[in-house]
Protein backbone atom coordinates (compact mmCIF):
# COMPACT_ATOMS: atom_id res chain seq x y z
CA UNK A 1 0.00 0.00 0.00
CA UNK A 2 2.80 2.40 0.77
CA UNK A 3 4.09 2.03 -2.76
CA UNK A 4 3.37 4.98 -5.04
CA UNK A 5 0.93 4.35 -7.82
CA UNK A 6 0.14 6.41 -10.86
CA UNK A 7 -3.00 8.53 -10.93
CA UNK A 8 -5.61 7.47 -13.49
CA UNK A 9 -8.38 9.61 -14.99
CA UNK A 10 -11.94 8.82 -16.08
CA UNK A 11 -11.96 6.64 -19.20
CA UNK A 12 -8.37 5.49 -18.75
CA UNK A 13 -7.71 1.82 -19.43
CA UNK A 14 -6.54 -0.26 -16.48
CA UNK A 15 -4.51 -3.39 -17.16
CA UNK A 16 -4.39 -6.44 -14.94
CA UNK A 17 -7.85 -7.99 -15.21
CA UNK A 18 -6.69 -11.64 -15.29
CA UNK A 19 -9.80 -13.12 -13.71
CA UNK A 20 -10.11 -10.45 -11.00
CA UNK A 21 -13.57 -9.20 -10.26
CA UNK A 22 -14.63 -5.58 -10.62
CA UNK A 23 -14.52 -3.47 -7.48
CA UNK A 24 -15.54 0.14 -7.00
CA UNK A 25 -14.61 2.95 -9.33
CA UNK A 26 -14.24 0.94 -12.52
CA UNK A 27 -16.43 -0.11 -15.43
CA UNK A 28 -16.11 -2.68 -18.13
CA UNK A 29 -16.63 -2.48 -21.86
CA UNK A 30 -16.05 -5.68 -23.76
CA UNK A 31 -13.05 -7.21 -22.08
CA UNK A 32 -11.46 -3.92 -21.11
CA UNK A 33 -11.57 -2.22 -17.70
CA UNK A 34 -11.70 1.57 -17.42
CA UNK A 35 -11.53 3.98 -14.51
CA UNK A 36 -14.59 6.01 -13.57
CA UNK A 37 -12.62 8.50 -11.50
CA UNK A 38 -9.51 10.55 -11.05
CA UNK A 39 -7.99 8.15 -8.60
CA UNK A 40 -5.43 5.57 -7.63
CA UNK A 41 -5.89 2.09 -9.12
CA UNK A 42 -5.72 -0.82 -6.72
CA UNK A 43 -5.14 -4.29 -8.04
CA UNK A 44 -5.10 -6.85 -5.27
CA UNK A 45 -5.35 -10.62 -5.44
CA UNK A 46 -8.90 -10.93 -6.65
CA UNK A 47 -10.25 -7.44 -7.19
CA UNK A 48 -9.51 -4.47 -9.40
CA UNK A 49 -10.72 -1.05 -8.27
CA UNK A 50 -9.99 2.70 -8.35
CA UNK A 51 -9.97 4.80 -5.19
CA UNK A 52 -11.20 8.29 -6.09
CA UNK A 53 -9.07 11.24 -4.92
CA UNK A 54 -12.12 13.47 -4.44
CA UNK A 55 -15.88 13.33 -4.18
CA UNK A 56 -18.76 13.47 -1.73
CA UNK A 57 -19.81 10.70 0.64
CA UNK A 58 -22.35 8.19 -0.66
CA UNK A 59 -23.89 5.94 1.97
CA UNK A 60 -22.96 2.26 2.20
CA UNK A 61 -24.65 -0.21 4.50
CA UNK A 62 -22.54 -0.96 7.55
CA UNK A 63 -20.43 2.20 7.37
CA UNK A 64 -19.72 3.89 10.67
CA UNK A 65 -20.25 7.60 10.35
CA UNK A 66 -20.41 10.77 12.39
CA UNK A 67 -23.75 12.51 12.04
CA UNK A 68 -25.27 15.70 13.33
CA UNK A 69 -28.91 15.68 14.43
CA UNK A 70 -30.72 18.26 12.32
CA UNK A 71 -34.35 17.52 13.14
CA UNK A 72 -36.50 15.93 15.80
CA UNK A 73 -39.51 14.14 14.32
CA UNK A 74 -42.38 12.19 15.90
CA UNK A 75 -40.75 8.77 15.67
CA UNK A 76 -37.05 9.53 15.42
CA UNK A 77 -34.40 11.96 14.28
CA UNK A 78 -33.15 13.35 10.98
CA UNK A 79 -29.38 13.05 10.86
CA UNK A 80 -27.00 14.94 8.55
CA UNK A 81 -24.36 12.40 7.52
CA UNK A 82 -22.30 14.78 5.34
CA UNK A 83 -23.89 13.35 2.22
CA UNK A 84 -26.45 14.50 -0.33
CA UNK A 85 -28.65 11.84 1.30
CA UNK A 86 -30.01 12.55 4.79
CA UNK A 87 -30.41 9.67 7.24
CA UNK A 88 -33.16 8.77 9.69
CA UNK A 89 -32.58 7.42 13.19
CA UNK A 90 -35.75 5.67 14.41
CA UNK A 91 -36.46 5.55 18.14
CA UNK A 92 -36.22 1.76 18.17
CA UNK A 93 -32.63 2.00 16.87
CA UNK A 94 -31.64 4.58 19.45
CA UNK A 95 -33.29 4.07 22.82
CA UNK A 96 -33.45 0.89 24.92
CA UNK A 97 -36.26 1.82 27.28
CA UNK A 98 -39.94 1.88 26.31
CA UNK A 99 -40.93 5.27 24.94
CA UNK A 100 -44.56 6.37 24.99
CA UNK A 101 -44.47 8.40 21.81
CA UNK A 102 -47.74 10.14 22.55
CA UNK A 103 -46.39 11.70 25.74
CA UNK A 104 -42.65 11.98 25.29
CA UNK A 105 -40.72 14.82 23.73
CA UNK A 106 -37.97 12.68 22.30
CA UNK A 107 -35.53 15.58 22.17
CA UNK A 108 -34.63 14.51 25.73
CA UNK A 109 -32.63 11.68 24.11
CA UNK A 110 -31.17 13.46 21.11
CA UNK A 111 -31.62 17.09 20.19
CA UNK A 112 -30.77 19.30 17.22
CA UNK A 113 -27.02 19.84 17.05
CA UNK A 114 -26.08 16.65 18.88
CA UNK A 115 -23.19 14.75 17.37
CA UNK A 116 -23.52 10.98 17.07
CA UNK A 117 -21.17 8.19 16.05
CA UNK A 118 -23.49 5.65 14.44
CA UNK A 119 -23.80 2.81 11.96
CA UNK A 120 -25.69 2.78 8.65
CA UNK A 121 -28.16 -0.02 9.29
CA UNK A 122 -30.16 0.22 6.09
CA UNK A 123 -29.58 1.74 2.64
CA UNK A 124 -32.22 1.13 -0.03
CA UNK A 125 -31.63 1.09 -3.78
CA UNK A 126 -32.99 4.62 -3.96
CA UNK A 127 -30.69 5.68 -1.15
CA UNK A 128 -33.17 6.01 1.66
CA UNK A 129 -30.86 5.74 4.64
CA UNK A 130 -31.40 4.53 8.18
CA UNK A 131 -28.80 4.82 10.94
CA UNK A 132 -28.63 2.97 14.23
CA UNK A 133 -27.06 3.38 17.65
CA UNK A 134 -27.23 -0.40 18.12
CA UNK A 135 -23.53 -0.97 17.75
CA UNK A 136 -20.88 -1.43 20.45
CA UNK A 137 -18.98 1.64 19.25
CA UNK A 138 -22.00 3.89 18.67
CA UNK A 139 -22.35 6.86 21.01
CA UNK A 140 -23.21 10.49 21.43
CA UNK A 141 -20.11 12.73 21.30
CA UNK A 142 -19.97 15.61 23.74
CA UNK A 143 -18.05 18.86 23.25
CA UNK A 144 -15.14 18.70 20.86
CA UNK A 145 -14.90 20.06 17.33
CA UNK A 146 -15.59 18.60 13.93
CA UNK A 147 -13.60 18.77 10.72
CA UNK A 148 -14.40 17.36 7.30
CA UNK A 149 -12.05 15.59 4.90
CA UNK A 150 -12.43 13.74 1.58
CA UNK A 151 -14.24 10.53 2.60
CA UNK A 152 -12.01 8.27 0.51
CA UNK A 153 -9.00 9.45 2.51
CA UNK A 154 -10.36 8.13 5.82
CA UNK A 155 -8.64 4.69 5.56
CA UNK A 156 -5.27 6.43 5.19
CA UNK A 157 -5.98 8.64 8.19
CA UNK A 158 -6.81 5.56 10.26
CA UNK A 159 -3.79 3.69 8.91
CA UNK A 160 -2.99 -0.01 9.00
CA UNK A 161 -4.85 -1.54 11.96
CA UNK A 162 -5.40 1.97 13.30
CA UNK A 163 -1.67 2.76 13.56
CA UNK A 164 -1.83 6.30 12.15
CA UNK A 165 -4.78 7.51 14.18
CA UNK A 166 -3.37 5.99 17.40
CA UNK A 167 -0.14 7.86 16.82
CA UNK A 168 -2.02 11.15 16.40
CA UNK A 169 -4.19 10.49 19.46
CA UNK A 170 -1.20 9.69 21.65
CA UNK A 171 1.01 12.55 20.53
CA UNK A 172 -1.68 15.24 20.73
CA UNK A 173 -3.51 13.86 23.78
CA UNK A 174 -6.81 14.04 21.89
CA UNK A 175 -9.87 11.82 21.64
CA UNK A 176 -10.56 11.31 17.96
CA UNK A 177 -13.45 9.60 16.18
CA UNK A 178 -13.29 9.10 12.42
CA UNK A 179 -16.47 8.58 10.41
CA UNK A 180 -16.29 6.84 7.04
CA UNK A 181 -18.33 9.77 5.78
CA UNK A 182 -15.28 12.05 6.07
CA UNK A 183 -16.32 13.66 9.36
CA UNK A 184 -13.77 13.63 12.17
CA UNK A 185 -14.49 14.59 15.77
CA UNK A 186 -11.64 15.81 17.97
CA UNK A 187 -11.53 16.72 21.65
CA UNK A 188 -8.48 17.24 23.82
CA UNK A 189 -5.25 19.09 24.35
CA UNK A 190 -3.44 19.86 21.11
CA UNK A 191 -6.30 20.02 18.62
CA UNK A 192 -4.36 22.32 16.30
CA UNK A 193 -1.61 19.73 15.86
CA UNK A 194 -4.12 16.90 15.42
CA UNK A 195 -5.92 18.88 12.70
CA UNK A 196 -2.63 19.69 10.99
CA UNK A 197 -1.63 16.01 10.94
CA UNK A 198 -5.02 14.89 9.59
CA UNK A 199 -5.12 17.54 6.87
CA UNK A 200 -1.56 16.64 5.84
CA UNK A 201 -2.55 13.00 5.43
CA UNK A 202 -5.60 14.04 3.43
CA UNK A 203 -3.48 16.13 1.08
CA UNK A 204 -0.62 13.70 0.65
CA UNK A 205 -2.47 10.40 0.96
CA UNK A 206 -1.16 9.00 -2.32
CA UNK A 207 2.51 9.87 -1.92
CA UNK A 208 5.41 7.88 -0.53
CA UNK A 209 6.98 8.38 2.87
CA UNK A 210 3.79 9.76 4.39
CA UNK A 211 4.12 7.92 7.70
CA UNK A 212 7.62 9.34 8.22
CA UNK A 213 6.43 12.87 7.49
CA UNK A 214 3.54 12.57 9.94
CA UNK A 215 5.87 11.17 12.57
CA UNK A 216 8.23 14.10 12.25
CA UNK A 217 5.31 16.56 12.29
CA UNK A 218 4.17 15.04 15.57
CA UNK A 219 7.69 15.04 16.93
CA UNK A 220 8.19 11.26 17.15
Amino acid at each position, binding site marked *: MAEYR*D*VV*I*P*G*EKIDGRKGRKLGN*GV*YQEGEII*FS*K*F*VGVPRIDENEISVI*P*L*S*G*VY*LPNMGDKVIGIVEGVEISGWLVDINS*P*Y*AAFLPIAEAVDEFVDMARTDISRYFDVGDIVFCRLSKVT*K*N*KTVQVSMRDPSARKLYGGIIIKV*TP*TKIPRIIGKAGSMISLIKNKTKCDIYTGQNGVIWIRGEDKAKAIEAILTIE*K*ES*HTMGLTERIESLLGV
Partner: protein
Amino acid sequence: MKEEKLMVDGKRIDGRLPEQLRDIKMKLNVVTRANGSAEVKFGKTTAIASVHGPRALFPRYLQESGTGILRIRYNMAPFSVNDRKSPGPDRRSTEISKVIRLALGPTIFLEDFPKITIDGFAEIIEADGSTRVTAINALSLALAAAGIPMEDLVASCSVGKIDGTLVVDLNGKEDNNSEADMAFAMLPNKGVISLLQMDGALTKKEVLKLLQSAKESCMKIYEMQIKVLKDFYKGE
Protein backbone atom coordinates in the same frame (compact mmCIF):
# COMPACT_ATOMS: atom_id res chain seq x y z
CA MET B 1 -15.64 44.89 -41.07
CA LYS B 2 -16.78 42.83 -44.05
CA GLU B 3 -13.98 44.26 -46.16
CA GLU B 4 -11.24 43.15 -43.81
CA LYS B 5 -9.43 40.02 -44.94
CA LEU B 6 -9.38 37.18 -42.43
CA MET B 7 -6.74 35.18 -44.29
CA VAL B 8 -3.56 36.76 -45.62
CA ASP B 9 -0.82 34.66 -47.22
CA GLY B 10 -2.20 31.49 -45.65
CA LYS B 11 -2.19 33.03 -42.18
CA ARG B 12 -5.01 34.20 -39.94
CA ILE B 13 -5.38 37.68 -38.38
CA ASP B 14 -3.69 36.52 -35.19
CA GLY B 15 -0.85 34.88 -37.14
CA ARG B 16 -2.09 31.30 -36.81
CA LEU B 17 -2.14 28.64 -39.48
CA PRO B 18 -5.57 27.25 -40.39
CA GLU B 19 -5.20 24.08 -38.30
CA GLN B 20 -3.57 25.80 -35.35
CA LEU B 21 -5.22 26.14 -31.94
CA ARG B 22 -4.68 29.28 -29.87
CA ASP B 23 -2.49 29.21 -26.79
CA ILE B 24 -4.46 27.05 -24.34
CA LYS B 25 -4.16 27.27 -20.55
CA MET B 26 -5.86 25.02 -18.01
CA LYS B 27 -5.89 25.37 -14.25
CA LEU B 28 -7.59 23.08 -11.74
CA ASN B 29 -9.56 23.75 -8.55
CA VAL B 30 -9.74 27.54 -8.58
CA VAL B 31 -13.02 27.72 -6.59
CA THR B 32 -12.37 26.57 -3.02
CA ARG B 33 -15.83 25.65 -1.88
CA ALA B 34 -16.92 23.85 -5.05
CA ASN B 35 -16.51 20.09 -5.24
CA GLY B 36 -14.43 20.60 -8.36
CA SER B 37 -13.52 23.52 -10.62
CA ALA B 38 -11.30 24.60 -13.48
CA GLU B 39 -10.29 27.64 -15.49
CA VAL B 40 -9.67 27.20 -19.21
CA LYS B 41 -8.35 29.83 -21.60
CA PHE B 42 -8.31 29.60 -25.38
CA GLY B 43 -6.32 32.72 -26.20
CA LYS B 44 -8.28 35.53 -24.55
CA THR B 45 -11.48 33.52 -24.20
CA THR B 46 -11.68 32.61 -20.52
CA ALA B 47 -14.14 30.22 -18.89
CA ILE B 48 -14.24 29.35 -15.21
CA ALA B 49 -16.38 26.35 -14.31
CA SER B 50 -17.33 24.76 -11.05
CA VAL B 51 -19.30 21.71 -10.02
CA HIS B 52 -21.40 21.65 -6.88
CA GLY B 53 -22.59 18.20 -6.02
CA PRO B 54 -23.81 15.60 -6.20
CA ARG B 55 -26.11 17.43 -3.79
CA ALA B 56 -29.67 17.24 -2.52
CA LEU B 57 -32.34 18.48 -4.91
CA PHE B 58 -35.34 20.59 -3.91
CA PRO B 59 -38.23 21.14 -4.48
CA ARG B 60 -38.98 17.44 -4.31
CA TYR B 61 -40.90 17.21 -7.59
CA LEU B 62 -37.61 17.75 -9.42
CA GLN B 63 -36.22 14.52 -7.98
CA GLU B 64 -36.11 11.38 -10.10
CA SER B 65 -36.24 8.19 -8.08
CA GLY B 66 -34.04 6.02 -10.29
CA THR B 67 -31.36 8.49 -11.34
CA GLY B 68 -29.59 11.71 -10.62
CA ILE B 69 -29.88 14.72 -12.87
CA LEU B 70 -27.33 17.10 -14.36
CA ARG B 71 -28.01 20.84 -14.44
CA ILE B 72 -25.83 23.27 -16.33
CA ARG B 73 -25.77 27.06 -16.38
CA TYR B 74 -23.68 28.94 -18.91
CA ASN B 75 -23.39 32.65 -18.19
CA MET B 76 -21.44 35.59 -19.61
CA ALA B 77 -20.04 38.26 -17.31
CA PRO B 78 -21.39 41.71 -18.30
CA PHE B 79 -17.84 42.92 -19.06
CA SER B 80 -16.86 39.86 -21.10
CA VAL B 81 -17.98 41.43 -24.39
CA ASN B 82 -17.47 44.79 -26.08
CA ASP B 83 -21.03 46.01 -25.61
CA ARG B 84 -21.98 45.31 -22.00
CA LYS B 85 -24.20 42.27 -21.69
CA SER B 86 -27.04 42.91 -19.30
CA PRO B 87 -26.95 40.35 -16.49
CA GLY B 88 -29.17 37.32 -16.37
CA PRO B 89 -30.20 34.55 -18.76
CA ASP B 90 -31.35 35.18 -22.31
CA ARG B 91 -32.39 32.95 -25.22
CA ARG B 92 -28.80 32.39 -26.31
CA SER B 93 -27.46 31.38 -22.90
CA THR B 94 -30.50 29.16 -22.28
CA GLU B 95 -29.87 27.22 -25.48
CA ILE B 96 -26.14 27.00 -24.85
CA SER B 97 -26.74 25.72 -21.31
CA LYS B 98 -28.90 22.99 -22.78
CA VAL B 99 -26.48 21.84 -25.48
CA ILE B 100 -23.62 21.84 -22.95
CA ARG B 101 -25.69 19.66 -20.65
CA LEU B 102 -26.28 17.24 -23.50
CA ALA B 103 -22.60 17.31 -24.44
CA LEU B 104 -21.57 16.27 -20.92
CA GLY B 105 -24.53 14.14 -19.82
CA PRO B 106 -23.71 10.93 -21.70
CA THR B 107 -20.36 10.56 -19.97
CA ILE B 108 -21.66 10.75 -16.38
CA PHE B 109 -22.91 7.71 -14.44
CA LEU B 110 -26.01 9.58 -13.30
CA GLU B 111 -27.67 6.34 -12.22
CA ASP B 112 -25.26 6.27 -9.25
CA PHE B 113 -27.13 9.24 -7.73
CA PRO B 114 -30.88 8.58 -7.43
CA LYS B 115 -32.95 11.64 -6.43
CA ILE B 116 -30.08 14.14 -6.37
CA THR B 117 -28.36 16.60 -8.70
CA ILE B 118 -24.98 17.51 -10.08
CA ASP B 119 -24.82 21.25 -10.81
CA GLY B 120 -22.29 22.65 -13.24
CA PHE B 121 -21.75 26.38 -13.69
CA ALA B 122 -19.63 28.03 -16.35
CA GLU B 123 -18.86 31.73 -16.27
CA ILE B 124 -17.38 33.42 -19.32
CA ILE B 125 -15.02 36.08 -17.97
CA GLU B 126 -13.77 37.24 -21.35
CA ALA B 127 -15.19 36.31 -24.72
CA ASP B 128 -13.12 36.16 -27.91
CA GLY B 129 -15.04 33.50 -29.80
CA SER B 130 -15.60 29.79 -29.08
CA THR B 131 -16.97 30.41 -25.59
CA ARG B 132 -19.27 27.39 -25.38
CA VAL B 133 -16.55 24.91 -26.28
CA THR B 134 -14.16 26.54 -23.81
CA ALA B 135 -16.88 26.19 -21.16
CA ILE B 136 -17.32 22.50 -22.01
CA ASN B 137 -13.59 21.84 -21.59
CA ALA B 138 -13.62 23.62 -18.23
CA LEU B 139 -16.73 21.76 -17.05
CA SER B 140 -15.28 18.42 -18.10
CA LEU B 141 -12.23 19.08 -15.92
CA ALA B 142 -14.38 20.38 -13.06
CA LEU B 143 -16.52 17.21 -13.12
CA ALA B 144 -13.44 14.99 -13.01
CA ALA B 145 -11.96 17.07 -10.18
CA ALA B 146 -15.25 16.83 -8.26
CA GLY B 147 -14.90 13.05 -8.22
CA ILE B 148 -17.96 12.51 -10.42
CA PRO B 149 -17.94 9.01 -11.96
CA MET B 150 -17.49 9.40 -15.71
CA GLU B 151 -17.03 7.10 -18.68
CA ASP B 152 -14.66 9.52 -20.32
CA LEU B 153 -13.64 13.16 -20.34
CA VAL B 154 -15.18 15.48 -22.91
CA ALA B 155 -12.99 17.54 -25.24
CA SER B 156 -14.43 20.33 -27.30
CA CYS B 157 -13.43 22.85 -29.97
CA SER B 158 -14.83 24.99 -32.75
CA VAL B 159 -14.08 24.75 -36.45
CA GLY B 160 -15.29 26.80 -39.40
CA LYS B 161 -14.70 28.42 -42.74
CA ILE B 162 -13.25 31.90 -43.14
CA ASP B 163 -12.33 33.56 -46.41
CA GLY B 164 -12.81 30.21 -48.10
CA THR B 165 -10.37 28.42 -45.79
CA LEU B 166 -11.28 25.69 -43.30
CA VAL B 167 -9.87 26.56 -39.85
CA VAL B 168 -9.98 25.39 -36.22
CA ASP B 169 -10.64 27.35 -33.01
CA LEU B 170 -12.25 30.55 -34.28
CA ASN B 171 -11.53 33.77 -32.44
CA GLY B 172 -14.15 36.47 -32.00
CA LYS B 173 -13.51 38.32 -35.23
CA GLU B 174 -13.39 35.11 -37.24
CA ASP B 175 -16.55 33.89 -35.54
CA ASN B 176 -18.48 37.06 -36.42
CA ASN B 177 -17.36 37.07 -40.05
CA SER B 178 -17.18 33.39 -40.85
CA GLU B 179 -18.86 31.67 -43.77
CA ALA B 180 -19.61 28.78 -41.42
CA ASP B 181 -18.83 27.79 -37.90
CA MET B 182 -19.28 24.57 -36.03
CA ALA B 183 -19.18 23.79 -32.32
CA PHE B 184 -18.03 20.27 -31.62
CA ALA B 185 -17.42 18.02 -28.60
CA MET B 186 -16.46 14.40 -28.30
CA LEU B 187 -15.66 11.65 -25.82
CA PRO B 188 -12.05 11.09 -26.87
CA ASN B 189 -11.66 7.49 -25.66
CA LYS B 190 -14.96 6.30 -26.97
CA GLY B 191 -14.58 8.27 -30.18
CA VAL B 192 -18.18 9.53 -30.25
CA ILE B 193 -19.64 13.01 -30.77
CA SER B 194 -21.66 14.71 -28.01
CA LEU B 195 -22.03 18.23 -29.39
CA LEU B 196 -22.52 19.26 -32.98
CA GLN B 197 -23.90 22.60 -34.04
CA MET B 198 -23.19 24.36 -37.29
CA ASP B 199 -24.38 27.41 -39.10
CA GLY B 200 -23.34 28.80 -42.43
CA ALA B 201 -23.07 27.25 -45.85
CA LEU B 202 -20.80 24.27 -46.52
CA THR B 203 -20.59 21.42 -48.99
CA LYS B 204 -20.91 17.88 -47.69
CA LYS B 205 -17.19 17.41 -48.36
CA GLU B 206 -16.34 20.45 -46.27
CA VAL B 207 -18.51 19.26 -43.39
CA LEU B 208 -16.69 15.93 -43.34
CA LYS B 209 -13.30 17.64 -43.60
CA LEU B 210 -14.18 19.95 -40.68
CA LEU B 211 -15.32 17.01 -38.56
CA GLN B 212 -11.95 15.39 -39.14
CA SER B 213 -10.02 18.50 -38.07
CA ALA B 214 -12.32 18.98 -35.08
CA LYS B 215 -11.55 15.43 -34.00
CA GLU B 216 -7.81 15.94 -34.38
CA SER B 217 -7.92 19.20 -32.40
CA CYS B 218 -10.00 17.61 -29.67
CA MET B 219 -7.41 14.86 -29.28
CA LYS B 220 -4.78 17.58 -28.71
CA ILE B 221 -7.03 19.25 -26.15
CA TYR B 222 -7.65 15.87 -24.50
CA GLU B 223 -3.88 15.41 -24.06
CA MET B 224 -3.75 18.76 -22.24
CA GLN B 225 -6.69 17.76 -20.02
CA ILE B 226 -4.94 14.51 -19.07
CA LYS B 227 -1.76 16.40 -18.26
CA VAL B 228 -3.40 19.04 -16.06
CA LEU B 229 -5.36 16.40 -14.10
CA LYS B 230 -2.38 14.11 -13.58
CA ASP B 231 -0.01 16.93 -12.69
CA PHE B 232 -2.44 18.38 -10.18
CA TYR B 233 -3.11 15.17 -8.29
CA LYS B 234 0.48 13.98 -8.43
CA GLY B 235 1.95 17.28 -7.40
CA GLU B 236 -0.47 17.90 -4.57
